[in-house]
């Protein structure tokens, strides 16, 4: 299995999904080798302590207790600054940042333009890095036993293609998001090309929703027969040991939790917040997450004159996420284009009712959620007020929603993936 993030190195849903799926496969007794890049400096999107891999770190196991529980999973990490939600610009900046740090450490004069610094042999652009990753994975794969290659999202596709070509094993690409979700119509042509090639070369495509399934057909020219839909599940991390926080609050809290990027529709959240505050006063809006529109969102809140009612927490992790859920009265996900959206399920697991955009994969599996068009801030505000104002609505959504979310289990997703593996293996055998 080829991925690019895994807890605790996560900045978004992809890592959560990979963890959930891998763990479920582990429990089903499937042997998984998970290859993922580890960042030299990870503070860009997460506040995780960086794990600096030594030159031998390719073989190093990951020393986190959570991962040790996975008996059938082996981890292979590759030192690389690849990050799931990067753009080339960000990558460039990070790369230069890494160089500066190196410079500081070594105290010497290291030429910034040099292609080979301190033994790290990667060129300064993300595309080359993706291919470098592919080359290392290919090398690594020679010593591994496996039946199927399962690649998660575009950065791993070149690697998947190479390994498939070398080993003759079937390639399955798993689409957690597409360039159209992340960038709207302003797609990065190179990323699109990588995605497209990966999808065309793959023996089978797994889409996280019918929403994504349709994008793959319409935008990437893939035949529908090649695509299977496997919805994500959700982990119930009902951390009962968490002390009951005595948060006494006379204000309602409406939560936005996700990357603050164009894809997640932060401006619609703020627009709706403004409308809500015209009618109700005792409400606070919390935006938990970071992203390239963060400063814009802060500015926008100020411009709307609701700056004092909107709190920005930055990126939250682990227990802090649980805490914020526990405080929230309502979770809103106004995503512009959301292939799946695991966060609403987590919110429901924490008994927080949800408003989700109709332009999301998760709305295919949730009935007991309020649904809106992301652009309809009037309706978003209307529904926010309704939940805050009419307690029976909140209670009914909580009860039914929690029950419904509990039925969406990673085990079922993993079983579906296994079935797809088997079918693909059969098909390729016949083809040979």
């Amino acid at each position, binding site marked *: 299995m080829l991925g690019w993030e895994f807890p605790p190195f996560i900045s978004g849903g992809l890592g959560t999904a990979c963890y959930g799926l891998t763990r479920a496969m582990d429990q089903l007794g499937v042997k998984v080798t998970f290859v993922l890049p580890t960042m030299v400096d990870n503070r860009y999107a997460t506040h995780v302590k960086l794990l600096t891999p030594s030159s031998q770190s390719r073989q190093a196991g990951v020393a986190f207790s959570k991962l040790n529980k996975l008996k059938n999973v082996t981890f292979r990490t590759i030192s690389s600054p690849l990050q799931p939600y990067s753009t080339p610009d960000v990558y460039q900046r990070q790369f230069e940042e890494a160089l500066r740090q190196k410079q500081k450490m070594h105290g010497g004069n290291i030429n910034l333009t040099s292609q080979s610094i301190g033994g790290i042999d990667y060129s300064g652009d993300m595309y080359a890095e993706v291919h470098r990753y592919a080359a290392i994975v290919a090398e690594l794969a020679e010593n591994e036993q496996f039946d199927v290659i399962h690649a998660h999202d575009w950065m791993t596709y070149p690697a998947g293609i190479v390994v498939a070509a070398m080993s003759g094993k079937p390639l399955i690409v798993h689409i957690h998001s597409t360039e159209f979700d992340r960038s709207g119509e302003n797609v990065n042509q190179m990323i699109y090309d990588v995605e497209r090639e990966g999808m065309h070369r793959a023996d089978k495509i797994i889409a996280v929703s019918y929403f994504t399934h349709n994008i793959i057909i319409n935008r990437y020219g893939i035949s529908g027969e090649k695509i299977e839909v496997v919805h994500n599940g959700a982990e119930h991390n009902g951390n009962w040991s968490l002390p009951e926080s005595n948060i006494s609050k006379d204000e309602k809290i409406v939560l936005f939790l996700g990357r603050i990027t164009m894809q997640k529709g932060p401006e619609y959240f703020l627009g709706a917040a403004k*409308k809500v505050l015209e*009618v109700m006063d005792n409400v606070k809006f919390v935006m938990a997450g970071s992203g390239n529109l963060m400063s814009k969102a802060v500015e926008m809140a100020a411009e709307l004159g609701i700056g004092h009612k909107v709190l920005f927490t930055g990126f939250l992790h682990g227990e802090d996420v649980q805490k914020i859920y526990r405080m929230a009265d309502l979770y809103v996900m106004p995503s512009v284009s959301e292939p799946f959206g695991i966060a609403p399920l987590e919110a429901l697991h924490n008994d927080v009712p949800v408003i989700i955009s109709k332009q999301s994969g998760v709305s295919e599996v949730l*009935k*007991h959620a*309020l*649904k809106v068009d992301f652009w309809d801030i*009037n*309706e978003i*505000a*209307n*529904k926010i*007020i*309704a939940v805050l*104002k*009419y*307690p*029976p*609505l909140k*209670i*009914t*959504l909580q009860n*039914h929603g929690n029950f*419904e979310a509990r039925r969406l289990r990673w085990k079922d997703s993993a079983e579906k993936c296994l079935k797809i593996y088997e079918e693909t293996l059969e098909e390729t055998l016949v083809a040979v």
Partner: protein
Amino acid sequence: MASVCFYFQVHQPLRLRHYTIFDKNDQYFDDYKNASICRKVANKCYLPANRLLLDIIRRYEGRFKIAYSITGILLEQFLSYSPEVMSTFDALAETGCVEFLAETYYHSLSFLYSRDEFVEQVNKHIETIEYLFGQKPRVFRNTELIYNNDLAALVESMGNFDAIMTEGADHILGFRSPNFVYQPKGCDKLKLLLKNYSLSDDIAFRFSNRDWSQWPLTAEKFARWITDVNGNGNVVNLFMDYETFGEHQWKDTGIFNFMRHLPEHILKHPDNDFKTPSEIVLSYEPVDTVDVPHLISWADTERDLSAWLGNAMQSNAIHELYRLEKKVKKAGDKKIITDWRKLQISDHFYYMCTKYFADGDVHKYFNPYDSPYDSYINFMNVLNNLHNRCSRQAPLDANDVPGKALTGKNCLTGQATGAAFCDLSQNKNPPDLQTVN
């Protein structure tokens, strides 16, 4: 003797328009949607079915009889949106073979929440029916056949009625058959007619179901089942939604043809006949009393109220609505009262039902909302506005002469129904506008 008693429920709700918390006006209802649905159902069901039944009645010269219960709220819609349906009902009324039943004008659950309001709505319905069809209903059926001993006692005490109808649910009958006339427990005069749900549902639900072992259902076969009742029953009460014809069962299922040929096959047997509910009351004496301490209805397999009051949203919405009763009536504004009553239409609460929601089923039929939550939000926003209107109205009344509030009240009991006459007599104007005058 097996007397077949057909009664058709004719009802369409008034659907609310999309109403957000930001809306401030008092236009709650989606006139366009209500008009188009009314016309659609009229073309698919009411008109062809009325014509067919009129045809049959004329052909059998008094041997084929039926009964209708048409809600006041739908009669208003007919007048506004498809007057041709009214004229066919008129023609049916004139044959003398059609009986009209009484119910709550607004197809409401008012019996459960306000006895005064219930009585007012029933009286309003009676007077409307009398005005339109020239006959005074003598048999009562409550919304969705909701029933218990208390209802029977209340209806008997109103003095107008000979009989009341409800579901022939197994758990109230035990070993007994619904094919007899009964008496409600605690009543002396009032008779009880029970729906034969098995035979009724054969037509209403199973008619086009190809998985059903008896499919296809022919008029001949059904007539045989009716004839089989001879010797162990007097009546077969076939109660169903009128929309069975052409809406629930589409025309191409053959439902109209089935109905066209049914009388012929039933009347072949000399012991069978058709009777209206009032004729049943005259012909047969009660064989036993039936005790129904708990509320029942004809809905779902549970035969209870859970489709309307099963979750927290539903009971909250309806409680809030009836809590406004005093305020609404005190405000004395006719438009406010009418709006409040239109919000009592039971369908508003049915849309909020979360039972089976995840499976998607019959509850979806005719449901204008994507989810029960949307319907609750919409309803509560409207109610919120109505509440504000009452509050605005109330201080005005207080400043007025106390007598004013009194006349307002009188309007409700006596004259409000008189006003309905005006509404209905001026056919050209939609009743919605009329009530403002």
